[in-house]
Structures are given as C-alpha cells and as structure tokens.
C-alpha cells in the first residue's frame, strides 16, 4: 500500500468514527445535553438524573456537558454560528430571545399539548417563558422559578427581640438597630459591585409597587418617585449600617460577609440557599420576601426562569423531547429542585414533604402563587437591557453609594437610556 493510500484509509476511519456520533451500530441514540450552569452544585444532580433516564430509556444515551453560567450565552452563540448546537440545552429567559432571534430553537407548543406535562407546569412560569421568547411561542419549558428574598440571621433577631421586617421602613430601622460597628457587626449588606443594579431595581420596584418596567409607549418607569426614594434610602445605609467594603461587593463577597457573621440581612435570591444553609444551618438562617413599600402592594421582579430547550438543528428531536419530559416529570423535578433549593415548575411537586419543610422555598412559592402578587418582569428580551444595567450603570451606582451622584440623577440617566433602547428596539424588531 502506498503512503497516500494509507493516509486516506486512516482519514476515512477517523471521519467514519466521528460521523457515527449520533446513531450507534447497536441502534442506540446519543443526544448531547448542555447544562447552562455546570459546577459542583448542579453537575452531580444532573448526572444522577441522566443515569435514571438511561435506565428508563436504554436506547438513548445522554452526553452531559457542563458550561459555566458566565460564558454560556457566548457558547451558544458560537455553537449556533458553527452549526454545533446540542440536542437539549439548559437556558434561562435572560438570553432566550437571543437564541430565538437566531432561529436556533424548536417551538414546543405542539409537543407540550400532547404530553402528560400539559397541565402540570405552573402557568405564571409558562407565561413568563412565552413572553421572554419574543414571539409568544414556547421555546423553553420552565424547570424552576427563583425569587429574590432577604436572608436574615434568626438568632440575631431573636437576641434583639425583633420580628423579621415586612415593610421597607421596618427593614431599614432594623438594619440600624442591629449594627454594632465596634464589634464589626452590621444590619445589612448592600451589593455595590458586580450584579448590583439588577438587585437594586428589584428592591426599588418592590418598594414603589410599579407594576411594569415600561409604559405602553416604551417609557421606562425606572425613575418613578418611589424608586428614587428607595435608592436614596438604601444608599444612606451604606457605610453606616453596612460594611464600607460593600461598594465593591459581588455575590461572593456578600455571602462571605453573611456567613462570616458580620451582617444580619442580605438581599439575594433562593440560589444562595445552599451556600448559606451549609455554612450556618437552618436554625440561624431564615428567608423573608422582599418587603413592601408604602403602598402595601406586593410587587416582585422575578429572576430569569431556568428551563430546557430543544435545538432545531438536532437530529434526534424525539429523543431530546423524551429527555426534557423526563427532567420535568414529577419525580425528577422534585429531586432537582430539592437539591438546588428552588421553586419547582411541576405543580404536582407542591404536595411533597421536603417542600413544606424547606422554609425559604415554601415561603417563595407562597409569594409567587399569592393572588395579589404583581409580577413586574424585567425586560430580558430587550437586547440592551443587560449592557445598560450592568456595564454602564454599576459604576454609576457606586458613585451614588459614595455620595458623588444623587439617586435621582442616577435613576433618571438609567431611565433615559432604557427608554431610548426600548424605542430603538421596537422600531427595528419588525
């Protein structure tokens, strides 16, 4: 055999091997699943569920790929451009419209209509996902809801003879009362670094009771008087009832302050329950909903809804759908949400004993299902929402904390940017 022939044979073998990734000789189908937030918290949970699924469906093999949440949107964009998307992908509503805009996802309305899951998923989450896709079709099946909460130190409140706050007035007063600077103890922690402004807006809307981010004509409600009032009052706490380091705080530093015993209250979402409960235990940590403002109305800015999508380019969409259905079935959805401490999307799970014993999740589910709760959903479908609220605004919020920019100017600047972006987008999305 000449050298050229040998090389050709080797190449043919290699290409042949690569080509049979989808359907193996024994009739087994392999599908790829991308976890959009891979890591020590979630990967083992998925691996367990995949093993269960493969036992139930011996003809389907699931290949798990864990991707860090910070780079997952880029990975999807690259995969779409290169034609190498997975069969099933974990997605959240914060970048769903980006994927839908690139025509990468298969609509799931018909499949859901014929599925036993049809009436099982929490309607408000299904609506949320439809809205976030941009064209009201269903491109993502929700698996969990995640709500902002105030984590607080039960033991410190008990020592001080205080009840956990239900209004912002109470929270701000408690923050001052629980502060003892000489003992390096503070009542509250302000998130001033990465991720600050989204959290701040969630606080502002819960205080002002504004029901939506934009008026009908695309004007941002961000600078509503109630919002300005709340930002001013929170900024006034900084450095007095909060550690001075808070101006740079991202998630990690905030959690370190809380678990390290230097702050009494911390605003985050159910996502931190694992870190907090592991460090301090359920006797010392409790969760309450974000307080209400002077109107007394409960307004909630939900976090992006996590779920699963089936990619259009996949060769094995039926197998992919089977896997998604399995992940959202009562047992899997129950196991999953119990492990990660979030609100299950499958309503059959709500009767499970673990959920009723999990105070933060049960409390958040109660808020989400209460009739008088208004959901002020953030405009995740607006492509410039994230750059404006993160890259542009986070340093400016630090100026508010440091006292070199007023809350009023800050929110009006932000509102002007959001209004311009929303109108620009509306006039171009066709």
């Amino acid at each position: 055999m000449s050298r050229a022939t040998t090389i050709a044979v080797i190449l043919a073998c290699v290409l042949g091997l690569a080509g049979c990734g989808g359907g193996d000789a024994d009739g087994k189908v392999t599908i790829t699943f991308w976890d959009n937030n891979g890591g020590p918290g979630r990967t083992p949970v998925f691996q367990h569920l995949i093993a269960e699924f493969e036992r139930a469906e011996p003809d389907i093999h699931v290949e798990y790929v864990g991707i860090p949440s910070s780079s997952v949107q880029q990975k999807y964009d690259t995969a779409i451009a290169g034609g190498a998307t997975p069969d099933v992908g974990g997605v959240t509503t914060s970048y769903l419209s980006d994927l839908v805009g690139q025509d990468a996802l298969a609509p799931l309305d018909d499949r859901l209509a014929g599925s036993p899951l049809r009436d099982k998923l929490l309607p408000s989450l299904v609506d949320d996902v439809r809205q976030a896709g941009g064209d009201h079709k269903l491109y993502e099946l929700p698996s969990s809801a995640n709500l902002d909460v105030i984590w607080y130190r039960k033991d410190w409140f008990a020592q001080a003879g205080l009840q956990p706050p239900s209004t912002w007035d109470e929270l701000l007063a408690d923050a001052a009362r629980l502060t003892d600077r000489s003992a390096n103890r503070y009542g509250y922690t302000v998130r001033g670094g990465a991720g600050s402004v989204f959290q701040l807006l969630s606080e502002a809307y819960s205080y002002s009771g504004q029901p939506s981010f934009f008026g009908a004509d695309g004007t941002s409600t961000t600078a509503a008087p109630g919002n300005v009032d709340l930002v001013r009052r929170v900024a006034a706490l900084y450095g007095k009832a909060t550690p001075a380091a808070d101006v740079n705080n991202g998630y990690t530093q905030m959690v370190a302050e809380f678990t390290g015993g230097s702050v009494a209250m911390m605003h985050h979402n159910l996502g931190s329950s694992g870190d907090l409960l592991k460090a301090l235990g359920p006797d010392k940590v409790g969760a309450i909903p974000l307080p209400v403002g002077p109107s007394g109305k409960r307004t909630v800015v939900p976090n992006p809804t996590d779920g699963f999508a089936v990619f259009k380019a996949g060769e094995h969409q039926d197998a992919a759908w089977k896997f998604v259905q399995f992940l959202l079935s009562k047992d899997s959805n129950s196991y999953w949400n119990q492990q990660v401490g979030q609100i299950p999307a499958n309503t059959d799970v709500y009767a499970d004993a673990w959920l009723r014993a999990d105070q933060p999740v049960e409390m958040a589910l109660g808020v989400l299902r209460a009739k008088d709760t208004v959901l002020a959903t953030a405009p995740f479908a607006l492509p410039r929402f994230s750059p404006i609220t993160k890259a542009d605004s986070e340093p400016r919020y630090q100026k508010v904390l440091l006292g070199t920019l007023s809350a009023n100017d800050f929110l009006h600047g932000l509102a002007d940017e959001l209004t311009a972006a929303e109108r620009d987008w509306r006039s171009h999305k066709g």
Partner: protein
Amino acid sequence: MSRARWTPYVLIAPTVLLMAVFVVYPVGSVAYYSLQHYDVTRSWANGFAGLDNFRQMLLHDPLFWQSLGFSARWVVVEVGLQLLLGLGLALIVNETFVGRGLARALVFSPWAVSGVLTTGIWILLYNPSTGVFQQLAAAGIGSPGTSVLGDPATVFPATVVAELWRGVPFFAILLLADLQGIPPDLYEAASVDGATRWQRFRMVTLPHLRDAIVLSTLLRAVWEFNNVDLLYTLTGGGPADQTTTLPLYVARKAVDAHDFGYGSALTTAGFVVLLFFSVLYLRLSKFDRR
C-alpha cells in the same frame, strides 16, 4: 545565482508567516472593526462607521480620557517605584553576606506566584473583617471595618502596593544579572583612584546598567499599561471607575456590553499610545543607536 538570491527570503519566510498570522492579522482586524459599528445588541445598525467610533471616543466620552489618565498615572508610579526598589534590592543581594542565598530567594519569590494567586493574597490581606487592617484595629490602630479598596482616598495606594509586591522582583532579577556582569577590576581601579561608594555607583554601576534599565522599564511600562488581572480581580475598576485603566474600559465595552466596534476603537487608541511612547522612549534614551 537565483538560488542564492532567494535563500535569505526562504529562510525568513517562516518568521514572516508567523508574524503575519499572530501579529499582523489580529492588529489588522482590530483596526478594521474600529471603523465598523459592530454591536451585538444593536445588530440592525451594524455596518461601516467611518470615524464615528473615534469621534465618539475623543469628543464625547469622558470615561475614555479618565481611564487613559489613570493608566498613565498607574504606569508612571508603578514603573518608577518598581525600578527604584528593584535596583535597591538588587544592590543589596549583590553584596556578600551570610544568608545571601536565602535573601535572593525571598526577593525573587513573588515573581514565581501566579497573577491570580497574587490578587487572592492581597484580597485576603485587605479584607476588612479578617485582614491586616482588622488586626491593626484590634491593636488600637485605625478603626474596625476599614476597607482600603472601597474608599476612593485609599484605593490607589492600596492597589499600587499590591502590584509593587509582584513587580519589584522583575527589576531585581534583571538588574542583578547585569550587576554580576560588571568586571570587579573596574571597582578596584575606581577605589584606587579614591572614588567614594556613591561615586563608584554613579560612575561604574549605573552606566553599566543603562541598557538593562532602558529595556526593563520599557517592557514593564507596556505590561503595566496593559495590566488587567490584578486590578480586575482586586477592584473591578472601581469603586466608581476610580481604578479603571484603558484595557479595563475596553473589557467593559467589548466583553460586557458586546459593543465590539467601539471596543476596537478604544484598543486602537491604546495601541497608538503605546507605539508612540515606545518609539519616543527608545529615541530619547538613544537605545537604538548603540
């Protein structure tokens, strides 16, 4: 004849090719994108921009000027202090004394620590609840909860000290290597002529170190200008843009806000500044004429 004429070109071809792939193409593509509107979040407006990005940058973007000014201050302070301290340490560990080997190892050790670990160490040292300032407060010096990285008045010196810790060994290593190449008879001759210690340093040591100093300050200035890891992890450019260098601003515009056209224009500006500075510096120090 023709073979001999082509040989040199064939021999340098691999280098030229590698340079083209790894230098010319990336620089060229950044220059190209700097003339484009290329913003992922406003894809309908993408296309040729002419000089729009540069006009925006030079005339309407105060943060560009602020970050460029901070970069300049950062480079001058860092390189100046690193050179002085590095030279001092090199002179000390060049002397003969008991424990010199250990002293040298200690001087060089920060250089062996990776950038991310360095910032990890300094984040812990500056931690207001557990770090060095909390220890000082417990001993009655300063107040508890002092956050040097959160206070605009102290964030600059705090970051400068952290970067000094990592940067000084570079100068110390380079200058020590050069110090050891100075023939001892020069010092002997100077001593015989009655030169004092200071005169020996000024007349013998410094002229010998000239090239090493020129080259190392230039290299270090470029590195410090482009420094991202330490500031990004220590402060993220904050608080309130107080420590945002030009490269950090580029990262925010291009990576965080997905505006690659404007990010490319900012990068081009940084490239031009460095190019101008390098040529000027080499000319002024007459490095290329020797």
